[in-house]
C-alpha cells in the first residue's frame, strides 16, 4: 500500500473492509494520483477543485465534484444561453409565477388559491441502454421533482422520439419504453394525459424519452429546497441506497489509492437503475402527509447525482452549512465506499430538513407508510458541507462550489456552412398530387404514416382514468385535468416539437413548437399561462449544434415574451448523437393553461351538437418546407419551415377561449403536421361522425389539404352560433373560412370534388400502422 499511514481500514457494518480517503489523508498525500479524467473532469477543472479546497480532493469529494460538474448537473455549456430566459421575462410575465428557473420545477398561480407545478425532463440515454427501466425511472424522477415542490403529482405526459418505425432497433426500444412508462406511471396511479410519438432516422441510436409531470397544491403549501435553521435535522427517507447507477464512480473503488485492483476493487458496474413504483407511490403519500402535518422545513428529491446533489443543493440554498454522517445511510449493498454512497442514483429517495422537535413525528409518519427514514445529519452555521464516515471527515467543502459554481463554458457557436444548401433545397420541385385519385391515395398514405397514425397502441397501455379528474386525454390536442372538484377549475397541458422545422431554422422552428403547444392548449378552451421545455440536442462541442441551441433558446425566449407567458423551468440534454451525426434539434416545448371550469372544455370530435358548421380559422399558404408530406412521400427535408406569427397565435387563442366561455364552439382541433386533411380525419374519427367539406372556390386542394401553415384551427360551431362566432372573428380580424358541415347521419368524410372516405376505411388505415409494426 502506497497510500501511507493515514489510510484507515474501517469496517462497514461488519461487511468487507473499505479503505477511506479522509480529508486529513488527502492533505497529507498531495501527490496521490486521482482518476479525474475517467470521471469526466478536465485538467483545468481538477486544478480548480484543488484550488478551491487548498489541497487535493478526497475520493468522496472528487466523486461529488465530478458528478455535479458534469454537463447534466452543471449546465456548463448551456448556462450562458439559458440566462436569456431570465433576461426576457418581464415583471408582467412573472406576475403568476410563484417559482421559476432554478427551483426543482416552476410553479404558477392558477387562481382560487391553487398553484400548479410542471416540468419535463429527459431520460434519453438510459432508455436506449435499457428501455423499460430507463423510461420507468425517467417517470419516477420527474414525479419526485414535482413532489419536492410540495405538490401532489396529478398527471404525467411522455414526449418520445424514436428511429424509423420499421427499424429493428425501434422494435426493441419502443415497446420497452412504452411498457416502462406505463409500468411505472400506472402503478403510481398517475393518469397519462398526453405526449408525443415521433419517428425519424436521426433518433436511431438516440431515442428521446422525455417525461413531464404536473402537480397541484394550495398556494400556501409551496415547499422550496432550503436547508435553513441551524440545528435542524437532515432526514433521508425512502428506498435504501445501493450500487445502482453509480456508473463512472466505480473507477474510484477499483482504483483505490493504491491502484490495487485485487483488494476491494469493484468491477465497473452498469449505470442502470431499476425503478420500484410501489415504493414511490408510498413515498408520495408519505410526503404529502408530512407536508400536511407541517413537519417539513425543506425538501429535495434525489435524482441524478444522488446524495451529492441533494446535500450540496440543500446546503447551498440554505443559510449555513450542513453536517452529514454518511455511515448512517441505510444501504442495500455491502462494502459501499463513501464515494459510491454519495454518487448512487438509487431511485425513490427524498431528503428533508426537519426541526429537531418534529423528528419523532416525522419518523412516525414514515413508519405508518413503512418508509425507511434515517436522520443522517444536521444544518450547521459553518458555511461548509462536512460529511463524515465513521468519525473521519471525508468531505469538507463550500457547498456552493459543488452545486452552483461549477465551470461555465462559452462554447464556440457557428452556423454550419451546410445550412444554406439545406434552406435552398426547397420542396417546390417535388411532384404534387392533383387528380382526385392521387389526392385520395395521398391522404390515406399520410394518415397511415408512422408520424400521423393513431397512437392508440401506445396510449392504450397507459392508465388515463386514475384519480378521476381526467377531462381530456388522448386523442386530444392537450391533456386536461380537473384540479378543484368543487369549482371545476383545471389545467390543460400540451408538448410539441417538430425537429424538422427546427433543423431548417432553429429560431423559427422553436417558435413553431411553442406556437403549436400554445395553440393546442387554446383549442381545448384553456388560457395558456406558462412554459416548460426539454432541449434535446447533439454535442455542445460541435459549434453547429451550439448554434442550433443558441437560436432555439433565443427563439423560445423571444416567443414567450411575445406571447406574454414565462418559461418556468426546463431541462437540457446534450450529446444526443451517433458518431458525428446529431439528432434533429428537438427543443420540446410544454405549455400549461388554465380553464376555470373544465365542463367548458372543447373536445376534438365532431358531433357533440345536432347541427354543426365547419370553419377553418387562420390563413392557409403554400408551405411545405419540413412538412410531413415532403417527408412521407418524398423523403425530403429542405427549404424553410412555415412562417410563424405569434400575434396571430395570440388572437386565435383569444377567440378560442372566448368561444369556449360563451359556448360558441362545440369542437376544435389545431392544424399541425399533415394539415387540414389530418385534422378532419381525426375530428371525424374521434367524434365518430362524418362531414361534408367544400373547399373555397379556386382553392388548390393539395395546398388546402396538406399545407402546414401555422396559426390555424379547425372548429365546429353549432349552427345557431355560427353568425355570432364568425362576426366575432371578423370583428377581431381573425381570417376564417367556412369549409363545410358536420353530418350527424353520415359515416363518411366527403371532400367535395376530391374524394369520399368511409369512416371505417379511415379508421382501419389510421389505426392499423402501429399494431402491425409492434404487436
Amino acid at each position, binding site marked *: 500500500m502506497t497510500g501511507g499511514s493515514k489510510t484507515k481500514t474501517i469496517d462497514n457494518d461488519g461487511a468487507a473492509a473499505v479503505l477511506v480517503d479522509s480529508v486529513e489523508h488527502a492533505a497529507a498525500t498531495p501527490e496521490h494520483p486521482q482518476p479525474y479524467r475517467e470521471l469526466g473532469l478536465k485538467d483545468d477543472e481538477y486544478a480548480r477543485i484543488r484550488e478551491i479546497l487548498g489541497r487535493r480532493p478526497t475520493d468522496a469529494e472528487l466523486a461529488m465534484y465530478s458528478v455535479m460538474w458534469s454537463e447534466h448537473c452543471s449546465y456548463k455549456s448551456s448556462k450562458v444561453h439559458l440566462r436569456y430566459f431570465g433576461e426576457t421575462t418581464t415583471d408582467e410575465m412573472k406576475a403568476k409565477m410563484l417559482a421559476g428557473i432554478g427551483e426543482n420545477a416552476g410553479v404558477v398561480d392558477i387562481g382560487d388559491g391553487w398553484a400548479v407545478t410542471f416540468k419535463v425532463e429527459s431520460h434519453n440515454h438510459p432508455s436506449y441502454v435499457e428501455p423499460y427501466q430507463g423510461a420507468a425511472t425517467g417517470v419516477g424522477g420527474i414525479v419526485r421533482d414535482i413532489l419536492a415542490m410540495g405538490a401532489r403529482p396529478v398527471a404525467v405526459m411522455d414526449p418520445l422520439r424514436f428511429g424509423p418505425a420499421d427499424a429493428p432497433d425501434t422494435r426493441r426500444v419502443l415497446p420497452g419504453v412504452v*411498457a416502462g412508462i*406505463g*409500468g411505472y406511471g*400506472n*402503478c*403510481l*396511479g398517475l393518469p397519462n394525459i398526453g405526449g408525443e410519438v415521433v419517428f425519424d432516422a436521426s433518433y436511431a441510436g438516440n431515442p428521446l424519452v422525455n417525461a413531464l409531470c404536473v402537480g397541484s397544491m394550495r398556494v400556501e403549501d409551496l415547499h422550496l429546497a432550503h436547508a435553513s435553521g441551524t440545528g435542524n435535522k437532515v432526514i433521508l427517507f425512502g428506498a435504501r441506497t445501493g450500487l445502482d447507477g453509480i456508473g463512472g464512480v466505480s473507477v474510484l473503488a477499483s482504483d483505490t489509492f493504491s491502484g490495487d485492483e485485487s483488494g476491494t476493487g469493484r468491477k465497473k458496474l452498469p449505470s442502470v437503475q431499476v425503478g*420500484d*413504483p*410501489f*415504493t414511490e*407511490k*408510498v413515498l408520495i403519500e408519505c410526503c404529502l402527509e408530512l407536508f400536511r402535518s407541517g413537519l417539513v422545513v425543506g425538501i429535495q428529491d434525489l435524482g441524478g447525482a444522488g446524495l451529492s446533489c441533494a446535500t450540496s443543493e440543500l446546503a447551498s440554498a440554505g443559510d449555513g452549512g450542513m453536517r452529514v454522517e454518511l455511515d448512517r445511510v441505510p444501504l442495500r449493498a455491502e462494502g459501499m465506499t463513501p464515494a459510491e454512497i454519495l454518487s448512487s442514483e438509487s431511485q425513490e429517495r427524498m431528503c428533508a430538513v426537519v426541526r429537531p422537535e418534529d423528528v419523532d413525528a416525522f419518523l412516525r409518519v414514515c413508519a405508518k*407508510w*413503512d418508509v425507511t427514514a434515517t436522520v443522517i445529519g444536521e444544518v450547521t452555521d459553518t458555511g461548509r458541507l462536512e460529511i463524515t464516515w465513521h468519525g473521519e471527515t471525508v468531505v469538507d467543502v463550500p457547498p456552493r462550489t459543488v452545486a452552483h459554481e461549477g465551470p461555465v463554458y462559452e462554447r464556440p457557436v457557428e452556423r454550419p456552412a451546410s445550412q444554406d444548401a439545406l434552406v435552398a433545397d426547397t420542396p417546390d420541385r417535388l411532384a404534387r398530387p392533383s387528380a382526385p385519385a392521387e389526392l385520395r391515395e395521398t391522404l390515406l398514405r399520410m394518415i397511415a404514416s408512422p408520424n400521423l397514425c393513431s397512437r392508440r397502441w401506445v*396510449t*392504450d*397501455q*397507459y*392508465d*388515463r*382514468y*386514475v*384519480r*378521476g*379528474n*381526467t*377531462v381530456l386525454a388522448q386523442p386530444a390536442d392537450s391533456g386536461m385535468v*380537473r384540479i378543484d*372538484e368543487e369549482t371545476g377549475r383545471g389545467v390543460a397541458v400540451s408538448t410539441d416539437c417538430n425537429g424538422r422545422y427546427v433543423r431548417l431554422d432553429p429560431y423559427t422552428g422553436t417558435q413553431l413548437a411553442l406556437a403549436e403547444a400554445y395553440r393546442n392548449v387554446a383549442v381545448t378552451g384553456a388560457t395558456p399561462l406558462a412554459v416548460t421545455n426539454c432541449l434535446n440536442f447533439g454535442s455542445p462541442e460541435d459549434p453547429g449544434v451550439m448554434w442550433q441551441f443558441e437560436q432555439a433558446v433565443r427563439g423560445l425566449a423571444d416567443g414567450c415574451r411575445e406571447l406574454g407567458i414565462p418559461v418556468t423551468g426546463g431541462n437540457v440534454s446534450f450529446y444526443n448523437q451517433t458518431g458525428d451525426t446529431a439528432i434533429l434539434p428537438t427543443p420540446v416545448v410544454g405549455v400549461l393553461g388554465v380553464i376555470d371550469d*373544465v*365542463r367548458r372544455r372543447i373536445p376534438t370530435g365532431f358531433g357533440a351538437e345536432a347541427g354543426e358548421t365547419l370553419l377553418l380559422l387562420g390563413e392557409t399558404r403554400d408551405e411545405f418546407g419540413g412538412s410531413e408530406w415532403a417527408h412521407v412521400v418524398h423523403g425530403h427535408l429542405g427549404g424553410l419551415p412555415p412562417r410563424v406569427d405569434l400575434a396571430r397565435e395570440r388572437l386565435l387563442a383569444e377567440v378560442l377561449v372566448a368561444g369556449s366561455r360563451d359556448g360558441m364552439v362545440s369542437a376544435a382541433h389545431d392544424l399541425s403536421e399533415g394539415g387540414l386533411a389530418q385534422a378532419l380525419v381525426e375530428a371525424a374519427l374521434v367524434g365518430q361522425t362524418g362531414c361534408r367539406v367544400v373547399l373555397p372556390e379556386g382553392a388548390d386542394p393539395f395546398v388546402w389539404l396538406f399545407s402546414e401553415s401555422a396559426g390555424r384551427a379547425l372548429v365546429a360551431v353549432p349552427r345557431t352560433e355560427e353568425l355570432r362566432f364568425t362576426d366575432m372573428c371578423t370583428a377581431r380580424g381573425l381570417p376564417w373560412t367556412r369549409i363545410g358541415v358536420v353530418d350527424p347521419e353520415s359515416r363518411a368524410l366527403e371532400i367535395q370534388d376530391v374524394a369520399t372516405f368511409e369512416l371505417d376505411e379511415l379508421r382501419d388505415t389510421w389505426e392499423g400502422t402501429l399494431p402491425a409494426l409492434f*404487436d
Partner: protein
Amino acid sequence: MTRIGVITFPGTLDDVDAARAVRHAGRDGAAEAVPLWHADADLRGVDAVIVPGGFSYGDYLRAGAIARFAPVMGEVVRAARQGMPVLGICNGFQILCESGLLPGALLRNAGLHFVCRDQWLRVENNETAWTSRYERGAEILVPLKNMEGRYVADAATLDELEGEGRVVFRYVVDEPEPGQAPKRHLGADSPNGALRHIAGITDPTGRIVGLMPHPEHAIDALTGPSDDGLGMFLSVLDALVAA
C-alpha cells in the same frame, strides 16, 4: 345514513375514485364513504365494503397475493361470510379471489400489455346486491384498465358459475352485429383473454361481487366514457336500505 368502507392498502390507487362514486350515488346525503386502512383490523361499523383498484404492494408477487393477508382483510372475510356486501374492483377483484371469497384467479392479459380502454359489458345478472339497478342484458360502457385481468378457473368451476348464474358481467365488443338491433356480441376474444369472456362474478349469495372493469370511473361523462357505472353504487344503497 349508509356507510360504505373503502379500503386503502399501500399501493391502492382508485380508492379516491371509489369514494367519489359512493358520494355521487348518495348525493342526497344517503351515503358516506368511510376510509379503511389496511393495517387496522377494524371495519369501523360500515354497512358494505369496496376493495378498490390499484397495485397493492406493487402487485409484485401476484396481484392481490400480499394484500389478502392484511389485517383488514381478515375482518372483510368475516363480515362477508355474514352477508355484508363486498365489491372488489380490479385489484380488489384479484384480492377477493386470492382470499378465497370468490373462485378462480386473474392472470396476465393474454396480449401481455397493460390495457386501458373504454369497454362494453353486458349485465348478465341483475340480482346481486351491486347490480339490481340494471336490466338484465343491459350493456354498459366503463373503463377497463389492468395488467392482470385474464379471468381463469377450471372447467368445473366455470360450469358451476354459469349454471348458477353467477357470471355478472361479460365483455362484449363495441360494434353491434351488422343488421342486428343494437345488440353487441361476444367477440372472438375478450380484451384480456378472460375465459368465457368473464368480466365479473359473484358468490352464491349475490352479495360479494368482483369485476375487472372500473364502474367507479364511469359515474360522470365529464371524466369517464359514460355514467353507466353509477348503477352499481346505487344498487348497493338500495340493497342496504331494503335490508
